[in-house]
């Protein structure tokens, strides 16, 4: 008894070991807490980024280190017709889908912001396209767009809208439209739920007061809801632009970049060149060509967030 009591007091009064004293210092504690994150992000983001730049100025292939060739890869891809098509496609794909996702997402968010039976249930189901693995749900779409067994053709035919079959993924323009539809389908829930969260922070009293003053629903939306929602909208749009610009999965599954390389995006073309044909350095150059646009969007986002925070 006595011994244990003594040892307990000595334990308590002994100066804490060096390790613990260091952790009492805010700066050391912060350092220790941040080390795992910095190591992982440094090893697998910062380092590969530098590697990517170094790779893009060599002529290395899979399993071959290669020599320095300057900007030859970039020169080569800018004169490559398929690359130019991919650039054009990526901008069209990002622009068109973002407009539709924002419009439809906002509309859906406004619908969900009302009180109705089964609201929580509906909201939970609406997010499904966003949470289900994209590759897997894209296969369902590919099957729906199948040239021979397409259920969409069946529907259009039975509504009397078409007489022959539509070869959705066999025609360059239709294939692009199909891909855009799938991306919109996947993105609308994300926009809707994020914007709904923004809508819920707007006090209903503002709208009621405006209604009493005689503002029409459209005026109320334009002068109250939209400006108050703008910060959330900006962040959601910029976030989505980055993801869409660098998208890979939908095109990879739906068309694989075809027909005749007409639907490639940056990422799918980089994959085809680097992994498909083994020209690692050229693929790295194609992927890096995305960087200026992504960088610009990130800068806009950072400036915008800072401005909102300062306010």
């Amino acid at each position, binding site marked *: 008894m006595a011994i244990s009591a003594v040892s307990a007091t000595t334990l308590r009064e002994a100066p804490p070991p060096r390790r613990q004293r260091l952790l009492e210092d*805010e700066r050391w504690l912060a350092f220790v807490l941040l080390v795992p994150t910095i190591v992982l992000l440094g090893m697998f983001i910062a380092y590969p980024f530098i590697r990517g730049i170094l790779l893009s100025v060599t002529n290395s292939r899979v399993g071959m280190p290669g020599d320095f060739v300057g900007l030859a890869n970039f020169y080569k891809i800018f004169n490559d017709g398929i690359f130019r098509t991919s650039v054009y496609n990526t901008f069209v794909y990002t622009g068109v889908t973002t407009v539709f996702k924002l419009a439809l997402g906002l509309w859906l968010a406004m619908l969900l912001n009302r009180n109705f039976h089964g609201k929580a249930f509906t909201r939970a189901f609406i997010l*499904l*396209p966003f*949470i289900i693995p994209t590759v897997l749900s894209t296969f369902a779409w590919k099957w729906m767009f199948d040239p021979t067994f397409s259920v969409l*053709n069946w529907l259009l*035919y039975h509504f009397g809208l078409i007489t022959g079959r539509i070869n959705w993924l066999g025609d360059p323009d239709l294939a692009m439209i199909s891909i855009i539809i799938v991306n919109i389908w996947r993105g609308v*829930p994300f926009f809707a739920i994020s914007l709904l969260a923004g809508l819920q922070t707007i006090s209903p009293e503002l709208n009621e007061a405006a209604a009493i003053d005689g503002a029409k629903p459209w005026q109320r939306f334009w002068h109250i809801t939209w400006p108050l929602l703008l910060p959330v909208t900006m962040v959601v749009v910029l976030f989505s632009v980055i993801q869409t610009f660098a998208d890979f999965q939908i095109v990879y599954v739906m068309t694989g970049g075809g027909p005749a390389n007409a639907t490639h995006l940056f990422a799918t073309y980089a994959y085809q060149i680097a992994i498909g044909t083994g020209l690692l350095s050229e693929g790295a150059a194609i*992927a890096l060509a995305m960087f200026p646009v992504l960088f610009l969007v990130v800068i806009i986002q950072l400036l915008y967030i800072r401005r909102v925070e300062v306010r």
Partner: protein
Amino acid sequence: MIEGAIWRKWVFFYVPMALFLLFLLFPFYWMVITSVRPDGELYRPWNSINYNPFWTWKPTWDHVRYLFEETLFASWLWNTTFIALASTAISLVCGVFAGYALSRLNFPFAGSLGTGIFITYLVPQTLLFIPLAEMIRNYRLGDTPWALILTYPTFLIPFCTWLMMGYFKAVPRELEECARIDGASRWQAMLYIVIPVAIPGILSAGIFAFTLSWNEFIYALVFLSSPEQKTVPVGVTSELIRGDVFYWGPLMAGALLGSIPVAIAYSFFVEHYVAGLTGSVKG
């Protein structure tokens, strides 16, 4: 709700809502119906007579059986679960620690570090997969789960950190100070006082991270090569298609079964998931 006549309610609410639900959920119905349909019914041209594509009177388990008996689907499920859980655990530990340090401790360069982590959050996987593939091969990690367990945290940690910072900022400082006055070290105050308060945030971050790593595709596609190592999305994509032939029955059954784990995880934690999603966007 909507003021005025009953038709307004239909035009402005019920009809658009129904159309949205139809558009968003139809592909899932199509997955379900295809995966229980016998092949004879599946491959009938869309314009054949008396053909109703939306229902079947002869449901079959053949496609599911094929998946488990003729392919490595069970191993893909296990691989994906293991990889998703491991990378989520790593990211949560890193994210909680980093989030705590960035939101509650004063140290030099805290602001620029926070911005740096936010920027990595915006780096898409497709920008880096080629140099990463080379690195993974050089480190001899190719074709092992570790290739993914170590790389997935790169897009999970920034998001977890960002989300946790929001939760930690909301914990009152007095709580921690009380514990410190009672003799707790900084480390203990963090571990036993602040982190428990932020458990809802940890759940949100965890559930979101789990679904993200379950759904990841391009790294898994590039870093894994042997069929028995693959994850569900990659396995379904590469092993259920022979050349130009698509086995649509098993493909849809695989898509459905591969989605169920995330759907279940999601259904238990809808609120946390939504909090994670909106929190990650708002920052």
